[in-house]
């Protein structure tokens, strides 16, 4: 397990290095002039240049990169050009909400997807399977933002059950936080359900054709025990990875969904950063999102390791 963990971390560091390079490269070729944006159209050339050197924008790129990395390592992501506040503060404020949304969506999805997946694998090619697979196809084939719009129309506008969007901090009114969460979380959860369900199904099908399932049958175990104990425990392992992946997907999907529901999370912050060419902020957002992504994959790997005794006790595999 130590080795496993160490190796995953090693991979992650290398990946992280690439992530920083890509982030830096892409954000630095964004069109537009930051100084101009800050100073406004009235600015003179001198003042623009002064600001640029103050921001370190006149340094060669690789120096800027190194400065940036050094800052990152020290937890300093710079100052937002647009808002003049530390990027870390800005992100910290939003991150929690996006995590809340993504977590809620994933939880909803897992809650429905795993039983559905198991049922459709066990009843392969029978009615429940067909229904579930129809549901799955619909779930993954309609863009999340469309689900969002439909949910708003139906549940917020027509029935008035939930607010159309926005966010209320739990410190203010926890119940309102929840009611505001329901629609965005479930419209994303809907799409995720489909993915996780399909994965559960195929993982279950694979496991069900394993030799040890045959043996369990030959031992006289009942179908229930075979499915829930022998098969599911194995099938769930790859599903964990998918869940983690879907979590990060959900986290990425919030860019659009937050826009639809006006959920003030990191997705909208990123859009703002893009639109105002706020490079430090954009870099911060991208890095944080990528980091969350990697961490959730790392978590998946660790859970995988935990659930799979071959890795848990094997040291290597």
């Amino acid at each position, binding site marked *: 397990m130590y080795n496993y963990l160490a190796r995953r971390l090693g991979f992650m560091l290398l990946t992280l290095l690439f992530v920083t390079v890509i982030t830096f490269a892409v954000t630095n070729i964004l069109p537009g002039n930051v100084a101009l944006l800050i*100073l406004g159209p009235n600015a003179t050339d001198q003042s623009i240049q002064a600001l640029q050197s103050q921001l370190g924008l006149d340094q060669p790129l690789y120096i800027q990169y190194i400065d940036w990395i050094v800052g990152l390592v020290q937890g300093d992501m710079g100052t937002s050009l647009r808002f003049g506040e530390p990027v870390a503060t800005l992100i910290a404020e939003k991150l929690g909400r996006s995590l809340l949304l993504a977590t809620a969506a994933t939880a909803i999805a897992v809650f429905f997807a795993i039983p559905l997946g198991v049922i459709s694998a066990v009843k392969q090619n029978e009615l429940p399977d067909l229904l579930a697979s129809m549901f799955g196809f619909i779930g993954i084939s309609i863009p999340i933002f469309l689900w969002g719009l439909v949910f708003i129309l139906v549940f917020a*506008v027509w029935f008035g059950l939930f607010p159309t969007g*926005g966010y209320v901090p739990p410190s203010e009114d926890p119940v309102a936080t929840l009611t505001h969460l329901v629609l965005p979380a479930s419209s994303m959860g809907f799409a995720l359900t489909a993915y996780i369900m399909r994965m559960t199904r195929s993982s279950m099908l694979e496991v069900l054709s394993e030799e040890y399932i045959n043996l369990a049958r030959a031992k006289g175990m009942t179908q229930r025990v075979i499915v829930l104990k022998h098969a599911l425990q194995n099938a769930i392992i790859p599903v964990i990875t998918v869940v983690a992946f879907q979590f990060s997907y959900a986290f990425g999907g919030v860019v659009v969904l937050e826009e639809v529901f*006006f959920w003030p999370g990191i997705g909208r912050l990123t859009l703002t950063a893009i639109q105002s060419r706020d490079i430090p902020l954009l870099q911060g957002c991208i890095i944080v999102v990528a980091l969350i992504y990697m961490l959730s994959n790392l978590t998946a790997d660790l859970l995988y390791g935990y659930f799979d005794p071959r890795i848990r006790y094997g040291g290597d595999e």
Partner: protein
Amino acid sequence: TGGDGGSDTETSGDGGSGDGGSTESGSSGEASSGGTLQWGGAVPVQGLDPHLDSAAASSRVLENITEPLIQLDFDYSLNPHLAKEWTTSEDNTTLTFTLEEGVTFHNGKEMTSADVLASFERIANGEYLATGFFDFVDSMEAPGDYEFVINLSEPFAPFLARMATSEMHVLPEEQAQEDKITEPIGTGPYQFASREIETSFTMEKYEDYWDQDEEDGPFLDKIVKSEITDPSVRLQSFRAGEYDFINGIPPKDVQSVQNDSSVRFETQFPKALVYLGLNCNEEPFDNKDARLALDYALDKEQITEAALYGTGQATASPAAPGSPWVNEDVEPRPRDLDKAQEHLEKAGMPDGFEVSFKIPQSYPTQVQGAKVIADQASDAGITMNIQQITWSTWLSDVYTNQNFQATTSSYLALYYPDVSFYKFLHPNGAFFFTGWENEEYNELVEEARRLYDEEQRAELYHEATEILQEERAGHLLLWWQPNLYGSSTDYKGRIGAPDGSTLRFRDNYLE
């Protein structure tokens, strides 16, 4: 003026008031104090430095936090405010202000002429929005605690008007020494409480407001602005009862909002002028005939209708409708495809031409209009490839680098003609970017700056307008659009502010 014409990141229709009367709704009963106003705002508040921030969204809240010496009234007259009176010397070069006494800043300190001087010096010596105006200022003095004097080098008509905008609001001396201000301290009826970037902004009543009044407020304890950029979502949420007040109702929904008896609907016209910007330094629009061909290809009325659903008005004059600066004789060119073809031929492009058409994506009405423009232009053989770009790209590509062929943009309904005629259309104007130059025109608007007589000035502007039309300036004006507000019926008081781009909450209250 709140912003630099239309150049701030705001979505469609929002802004101030100005069209006297229509925004006052039956405030029959007694104004009641207290309560929190939930405001569904269109554009997120940007920077909070009143001297630096050009965004209308910022001005909209700053209007209530910091204050000017002179304030614009709904009838477009300038009234004393922090300066209880002012005098102008015979030769129009010395301005003397007598300040109100007992005015305190939100930090409790009393306001004196030292603060005014510090604030103005900050602008004069820095890189702020109004810095250019101080080119005409010789000196400033604070002879007494409540007396403040400005000496101009020559008569400069727009100066007083500029003083009424947040670009020249008064800040406490300590803050005036800072380069950048993030939490402004002012003397206004509301004080900054908190904000979350791109999400919400909160102001609270300033209990010691110097100009408190039983009738005029301030009344509201708190104003919470939630920043919902999508107009449809904003409207939906408003209708779902989440807000007491919203600005920027989409024009397409005006009808249904008007028909809704549970909504108090207010419109303020005009708010902004939208124009089609043509790059006169580059092919094909460096050719006057090419510009005319396009002008003739477009049906401005149709375009306005498509974008504004009857809430706007097509125009050919940069002066705000209803102001004396408007030349009533100049009207938009009617659509005439034959003439368009004629001009195309004159321009040497009988088969038409193809241009890129950069639209700032955050303005739905402009996007909407652009689609119709492109369609109509195509009938004349002119292909306009729409490209939606972000505001920051617009600023750098279109405005700074002039790397564009056609674009749309807007400016706010500035009552002061200098902005409309000089800032955008004079080569020395702060926001000159289409490259269209005309000696005669330039002389006219320069002369107008020095005149204090309304009629004489109007005459010059009328002439200038004709030149714009004749020469088909790089600004092909499209339409004036209104500000559209909605509120719950128990929200009382006059909505908006005279300059069209901001909001004054001082006398507003919830029943």
